[in-house]
């Protein structure tokens, strides 16, 4: 579309309008919604071409692709909403390979009857997050399901990036002796979401930590190109992420409970909900594993970045044929930090 667009009699009613089946029909109503909502918000050269796909230039390096579907409930929460979360989540998955995220795609599944005003808030939040991250949303898709068959809005995003030769970050590269670092306080996102759930609403000042981490990763790689593993501890929290890496790398881990950063408010909320902050989801934190000789420099680089201010070394990789993650408790004993069993908090992202 060029400057002479809007061949529609009336603009989309973003005040009182609701999503209806025609918005996913492929007809004029859908074209208008795409035009007046998505293209306007995400605005870039590829979208303006109005093709069913985007043709993209690729810089040299290896292609990195990640996809993530977002079904968080509620859709709006302290510190964010499903829109910015769907950008951050996928940007982070790409960035955890040490890659520079370049493009995003977005697929929406909308429920009939969902207010267009809320949809616009979500889309604008998504656009702002993409712009801030410097990663354009270059193609997308919209489907509408009947009322009762969805839950307002589901968003799938796919991210594409490149990782230069020489950067080898993978979950199977942790070696005994390596240092384990986290970029900040744990459990903020999960507790912020829980505070809104209808059956346990409690008042809190905790906001989700949702954020795009590729800037932090770039700063870390500039300082220590030899980082071995990076992962964002989302669902299942730090405990699950470390167990995944331990299994992939065939190693064990030993943590120091006292060195793991957790906000007092989060610890308090977990205490009365019977949760363990090590298992609660994060959306703006990462775990890094590096050679112990690089640990000091890496920690310094992380703390110099606004998203890594509270970074800390929380433990070390050890030899263990059982691939157990163990922890020395603040109390002075030892225990395992096992895989998450069952479902601690459903629909958290």
């Amino acid at each position, binding site marked *: 579309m060029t400057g002479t667009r809007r061949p529609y009699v009336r603009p989309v009613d973003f005040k009182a309008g609701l999503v209806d089946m025609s918005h996913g029909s492929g007809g004029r109503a859908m074209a208008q919604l795409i035009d007046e909502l998505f293209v306007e918000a995400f605005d870039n050269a590829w979208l303006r071409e109005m093709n069913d796909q985007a043709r993209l230039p690729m810089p040299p390096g290896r292609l990195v692709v990640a996809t993530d579907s977002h079904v968080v409930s509620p859709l709006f929460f302290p510190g964010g909403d499903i829109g910015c979360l769907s950008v951050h989540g996928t940007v982070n998955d790409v960035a955890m390979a040490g890659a520079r995220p370049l493009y995003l795609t977005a697929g929406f599944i909308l429920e009939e009857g969902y207010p267009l005003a809320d949809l616009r808030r979500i889309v604008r939040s998504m656009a702002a997050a993409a712009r801030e991250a410097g990663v354009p949303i270059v193609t997308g898709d919209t489907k509408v399901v009947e009322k009762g068959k969805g839950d307002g809005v589901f968003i799938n995003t796919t991210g594409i990036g490149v990782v230069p030769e020489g950067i080898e970050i993978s979950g199977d590269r942790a070696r005994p002796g390596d240092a384990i670092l986290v970029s900040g306080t744990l459990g903020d996102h999960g507790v912020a979401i829980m505070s809104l759930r209808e059956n346990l609403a409690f008042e809190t000042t905790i906001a989700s930590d949702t954020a795009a981490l590729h800037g932090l990763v770039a700063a870390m790689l500039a300082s220590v190109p030899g980082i071995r593993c990076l992962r964002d501890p989302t669902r299942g929290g730090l405990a699950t992420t470390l167990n995944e890496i331990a299994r992939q790398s065939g190693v064990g881990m030993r943590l120091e409970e006292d060195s793991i950063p957790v906000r007092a408010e989060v*610890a308090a909320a977990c205490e009365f909900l*019977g949760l363990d902050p090590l298992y609660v989801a994060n959306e703006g934190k990462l775990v890094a594993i590096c050679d112990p000789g690089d640990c000091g420099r890496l920690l310094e680089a992380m703390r110099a970045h606004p998203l890594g201010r509270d970074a800390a070394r929380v433990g070390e990789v050890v030899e263990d044929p059982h691939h*157990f993650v163990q922890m020395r408790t603040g*109390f002075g004993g030892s225990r395992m930090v096992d895989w998450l069993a*069952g479902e601690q908090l459903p629909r958290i992202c």
Partner: protein
Amino acid sequence: MKYVDEYRDGALARTIAARIAAAVRPGRTYHFMEFCGGHTHAISRYGVTDLLPPSVVMVHGPGCPVCVLPVGRIDMAIELALREKVVLCTYADTVRVPASGGLSLMKAKARGADVRMVYSAADALRIAREEPGREVVFFAIGFETTTPPTALVLREARAAGLSNFSVFCNHVLTPSAIAHILESPEVRELGTVVIDGFVGPAHVSTVIGAQPYEYFAEEYRKPVVIAGFEPLDVMLAVEMLVRQVNEGRAEVENEFTRAVTREGNARAKDLVAEVFELRRSFEWRGLGLVPYSALRLKTEWSAFDAERRFAMADRRVPDPKACECGAILRGVKKPVDCKVFGTACTPETPIGSCMVSSEGACAAHYTYGRYRSAA
């Protein structure tokens, strides 16, 4: 966190550990049963046993509300939940307890049963108010700690004239379970289970007080130390028990003075007495039929009693053969003595109830301590 961190202080723990190490007599062992799952959980989660000398052995007791629910009662709850119009409200752990036919409340939910997880009895009452067209049943489980809240919502329901709310009562009593263990042949005659004393319940005792344990201390010559659920509480209780054993005393002592009195909570006890009465006997997983060990709604509250309202038939179903939950709940076996522990029975695929609740001995050992037994 204030008022919590103080009870998890590592430096204080080391001080008490040193005192216990100095107090234990060489050449003798001390077996203490922590009755409550809350203590079992704290011991595993904070690694309390690492700070105790090897001669102090903690034996896990049956005080885990989810663990002691027999298969038959879960079956009854599932049958109820699958009825049309019924909404079954339950505490979260309960949904995963295995029942007959490979079912659990969670699996029944996938088959269309309306099972809702609630954090309190009051949430169940709220659902009943909000959905007048549904039959809302609260699956009430637990020891004396969770009984007063159930009584409270029942009183509220009656005052509000709610006709679509009822309670499937499974509340059980701590003193009867302790007596049953002390009377068991393993403890009394065979001597296969050595119990030198009890770490007494924390939250339960805030309601019933310290007085009900005096009988055990005197009659069975077993010291009881009531302790809070924080790890320092447990350490201090162990120290007090060691001293009682050394001095040949068998008394009820109260470590949890910040919350427990000798008389307990009179208002809560009155409330319970208003609504509930003793059952002649009740089946516990592991302990079998225990006389006068559980509560049911009094006749004048029968309109709110799900068992009467839905004419629920009592069911008794044996535990799965391979499962040792029964022996583990009585302190006769340890989780690792069970053949299916960690193999067929894990928190993801529990066979017995002790692997379900985070307060269960098997789940606690599997989740926090199995590296200790891994070769």
